[in-house]
């Protein structure tokens, strides 16, 4: 293990989990939240030619998914570097 000490190792995992959970909250909110649970409420809002809830269910959530993965990749690369566990 390349961690300097046990403390670092715990901190790396904690940061990893917290990043993951934050992104999963967004994942849940845009798909299950906006696209399904709140769809009727959001459908009262017009977004170009779409009802907003419908747009999230059939378009918007998918775009957010893509962004989420790349945010995760970026943040994890930074985290790996900070703790010296990146692979080169």
């Amino acid at each position: 293990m390349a961690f300097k000490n046990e403390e670092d190792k715990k901190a790396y995992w904690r940061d990893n989990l917290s990043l993951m959970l934050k992104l999963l909250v967004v994942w849940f909110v845009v798909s299950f939240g906006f696209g399904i649970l709140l769809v009727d409420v959001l459908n009262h809002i017009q977004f170009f030619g779409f009802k907003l809830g419908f747009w999230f269910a059939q378009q918007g959530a998918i775009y957010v998914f893509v962004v989420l993965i790349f945010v995760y990749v970026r943040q994890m690369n930074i985290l790996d570097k900070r703790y010296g566990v990146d692979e080169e």
Partner: protein
Amino acid sequence: MDVQILTFIIVGASFLLYIGIAIWARAGSTQEFYVAGGGVHPIANGMATAADWMSAASFISMAGLISFMGYDGAVYLLGWTGGYVLLALCLAPYLRKFGKFTVPDFIGDRYYSQTARTVAVLCAIFVCFTYVAGQMRGVGVVFSRFLEVDITTGVVIGMGIVFFYTVLGGMKGITYTQVAQYCVLIMAYLVPAIFISIMVTGHILPQTGFGATLSDGSGVYLLEKLDGLSLELGFNEYTSGTKSMIDVFCITAALMVGTAGLPHVIVRFFTVPKVRDARYSAGWALIFIAILYTTAPSLASFARVNMIETINGTEQTGTKYANAPTWITNWEKTGLIAWDDKNNDGKMFYSGDDRNEMKVDRDIMVLANPEIANLPAWVIALVAAGGVAAALSTSAGLLLVISTSVSHDLLKRNLMPNITDKKELFFARLAAAVAICIAGYFGINPPGFVAQVVAFAFGLAASSFFPAIIMGIFMKRMNDKGAISGMLAGITFTAAYIIYFKFVNPAANIPENWFLNISPEGIGTIGMVVNFVVAFVVLKLTGDSPEEIQQLVEDIRYPKGSGEAQAH
């Protein structure tokens, strides 16, 4: 040039390309056969994953399904994309770090149990076979419509091609042919979609055309028009669905979690060099998938407006059959469209109530689109090549999982631990060959329940693999007994529910009889919860996993030194 000849040329050229790639990318070791030597670039792997994932169902049926389901179609759109977020964040990097060849490998080692491994192997084989039978059928349908050969010949040709590059190239051959197949299928999907978007809304991008006004000068939004038409014709409003909210929620969740637990998708992340690449790769895969998945709902709405206006006329009074466009008569021959002149006025009429005179199969929406939009013959040929590419790429990925499960998990890790690499490779090829023949048999003689078993595949993956892998990574203490009883409980519950409503008593398959209003398609979500709960309870009763296993889990949590994917 004649459509038929053009189709032969374009489909034939795509086959030559796949064969050429297969010869170039032969596999020399089990390492290359199972995980392409672990040296695939993340973007190439992303494309291969996308092709692997998008099957004949995604390519041919999905847009049509959505166009008939309206809002409810979101279950497929969200379900089959959202799973990649779970894969990228919770599974792929850790499984890559673990560095084995297969999902049963992980389950068997992490839960230090041959029983767990065997349960996982059986699930993997079952899931893959149910899937692959449908793919072979898809190849047959495309061949029979576009090349006018019979379905059996179509399936045999498809089997031959897949046989060649799977048996010869293994994962290495499959990966690079899938990259080519992705390019073919995405072109075939986008070209007609773009043409139709321009025609209907004047927008080049189908994704923005979806929310734009119609180009007929009326200033009405496409979706507004569609909602109006739907209500007028006795359907539900297009932008609101008919399923209950809890059912939409559960189906979406089951498909997402099922996606993240499907062995042929997970195994793709073993082929990249590093943990970091596994993360990137999932992102690229989702981009490539999203291109098709954001186009599909747009296409669905264009196609629906187009179809209704063609059949009913712009005045909604019906079009004289004598004046029907040629695509209607063309597709009538295949039985996918039928007209029954109930009121004897010589006019066709399509609606959701008793005025309806048309039977329109949903598969027609993508396949007949180029004809509906009057596109040139080469576009029709391209769509045929795309449909075949989608079906072949998915079959190959599935067949590889079957062959790996047999040669690696069942023989090498279970029954014959001492065989050499060369022998194992031989068995892998043999298993692939046998699997192709079985799949071909089901393609030619499809069991009547192919469509139903797809729900089964996702439900099973959601209620078995996904919780076992998640707990394997995020709960060091989870032990063998907890995981095994969880998997068995999840599978049994899900399978029993689906079998009851789909096979034993299909007449009872109505919302009133469902548990909490959840359809058999969505029950995998509850199965997953059952799995987690049972695993936790058993863990509490039997004590934590041993120290060395906790050490192993610690190890997969940190990316440094993932090394090559290896057997031991």
